[in-house]
């Protein structure tokens, strides 16, 4: 059921535009917040090499956030409105992204990144069929890097699960994060329009099924168990992020994130790099 190709940003109907915006906020906020969380590991990684690798991933995700926020700028928004002056409860990222790390809980970092990267991979694959040309332009760039992220997370999971204590920690992280991981597939208010207009033709509910199969099979192979498929609906965390509900961790992260911006009393966010459309 191929949908009609949507027009340029300025030519969208109100319905189309609202659906595009909802999807872009979801994509951009996920990348931005998870990346910022990954940077918690800079200078804290288990080895210098691990430290450098997670910093790379954080920067890739920040780069993706930049690509998606940039598409929102097509509608006339500035970076300040999109990030720095937005209220905490206006962010639409899944609450998986915002969870703080317990000191030293590298298993959490690895499991989270695995859950996130598989979901992102599926989402990006679905977006390859998008009816909105501006999103289609950006997909290739995102896809190339996600492959490396998934491999990184899988390698670490394999290494940790060769060890009894490592496996125990991975299992604990899977158990703790699962309810939040499921929020990645919780719909925004515009989900039906997003699918019907073909902006992302595959519904999130279907992506969740694929995600469950992929991650479940891989973790099972490592001796790590995941919840039963039937239990998933009841397991989803109460705060999904997609509707603006967040955990306390987000408010703390948000306060720190915006601290300097507020302190400087700024009205603009300094750009240092070329606009993605000009690269």
């Amino acid at each position, binding site marked *: 059921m191929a949908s009609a190709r949507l027009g340029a940003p300025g030519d969208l109907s109100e319905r189309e535009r609202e659906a595009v915006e909802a999807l872009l906020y979801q994509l951009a906020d996920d990348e*931005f917040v998870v990346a*910022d969380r990954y*940077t*918690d590991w*800079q*200078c*804290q*990684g*288990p*080895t*210098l*090499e*691990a*430290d*450098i690798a997670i*910093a*790379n991933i*954080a*920067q890739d995700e*920040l*780069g993706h*956030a*930049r690509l998606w*926020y940039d598409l929102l700028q097509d509608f006339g928004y500035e*970076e300040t409105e999109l*990030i*720095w002056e937005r209220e905490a409860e206006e962010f639409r990222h899944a609450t998986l992204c915002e969870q703080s790390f317990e*000191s*030293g809980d*590298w298993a959490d970092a690895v499991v989270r990144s695995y859950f996130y990267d598989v979901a992102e991979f599926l989402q990006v694959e679905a977006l390859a069929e998008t009816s909105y040309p501006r999103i289609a332009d950006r997909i290739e760039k995102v896809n190339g890097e996600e492959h490396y992220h998934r491999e990184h997370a899988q390698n670490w999971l394999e*290494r*940790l699960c*060769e*060890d*009894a*204590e*490592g496996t125990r*920690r991975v299992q604990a992280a899977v158990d703790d994060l699962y309810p939040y991981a499921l929020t990645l597939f919780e719909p925004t208010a515009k989900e039906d329009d997003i699918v019907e207009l073909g902006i992302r033709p595959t519904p999130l509910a279907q992506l969740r099924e694929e995600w469950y199969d992929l991650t479940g099979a891989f973790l099972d192979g490592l001796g790590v168990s995941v919840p039963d498929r039937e239990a998933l609906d009841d397991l989803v965390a109460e705060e999904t992020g997609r509707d603006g509900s967040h955990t306390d961790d987000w408010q703390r*992260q948000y306060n*720190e*994130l915006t*601290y*300097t*911006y507020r*302190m*400087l*009393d*700024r009205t603009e*966010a*300094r*750009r*240092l*790099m070329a606009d993605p459309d000009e690269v």
Partner: protein
Amino acid sequence: MQDRYKHCYMDIEEVKQRAGPREFGPTDDMPEEYRKAATRMIQFHANSEIMGAYIERPFIRQAPSLDRKLAVSAQVQDEIGHGQLLYRAAENLGIKTREQMLDELANGEGKFLNCFHYPLDDWYELPMIMFFVDGAAMRRQATLKRTSWEPYAHAIDKICFEEGFHIKHGESILAELASGTRRDQERLQEAFDKWWPRILQFFGPTDDQSTHSDFSSAVGLKTMGNDALRTAFLNVYLPKAEKYGLEIPDTPAVTFNEDTQRYEVEEDDLDWDEFMQIARNQYPQGKGQIDKRHRTQEAVEWVRDAIENPGAGSAAAD
């Protein structure tokens, strides 16, 4: 046999004679005194990269724009990468392993630059490190491209290349604040007043007071003295500070001596007691930084156990 031995082993006199840029490497059988001096110097540098990354780290999250966040994250990552390179160059000398050096850093035995013992309070202080201190470090490092231990010089090539971008970014933050509101300019000046004496002390005590200088210079590890480096720094950075509207504090007094063509700093205006306390890793705030490093390293100890002795399970429980 006799000849071959003579060919490989070098005594200190021969080292001093041959000492020149990138003269020695892992295939040379260097005397222990040289290897120890080089290890001390490179380990200090590596530790400084790690602890420098530590004080900049909070500003990844606190950066006020997406691009600045990316730049600070990349910068902190580069510094960890420099640490990695330098520990490798030091390891080549056969005195200490990387693990030993990292343990020493976490235990408070490892020494590092004075400026990285002071945590940064806010964004206004960031360019003090990213522009002035990194600029000072760049002066010193540029002279180390000619150090006699080749693996060190090789690491320095990459470090200087990347450090150039960091300083540019530091200058861009400085320029943005300096052209901001009046309040921005005042806060920037306060940060500068606070950091200026520390920056002057970056180069350490004057040459006649410096403990390890003579030997390191004689064997070509060090290629320029503290005094000359400080002058080279001030020549460039005093005008830059003024360009951004910063007033140079009256104390410590800095004057230019026309005869020697050098800047002179009134040494008594600087707090050398604090400097020495820092050098012993006993300055309270610096100790706080080291303890933080210790705790975070301890918290991920289980990961290193798991990947180094897989299958062994929790060794601590046995």
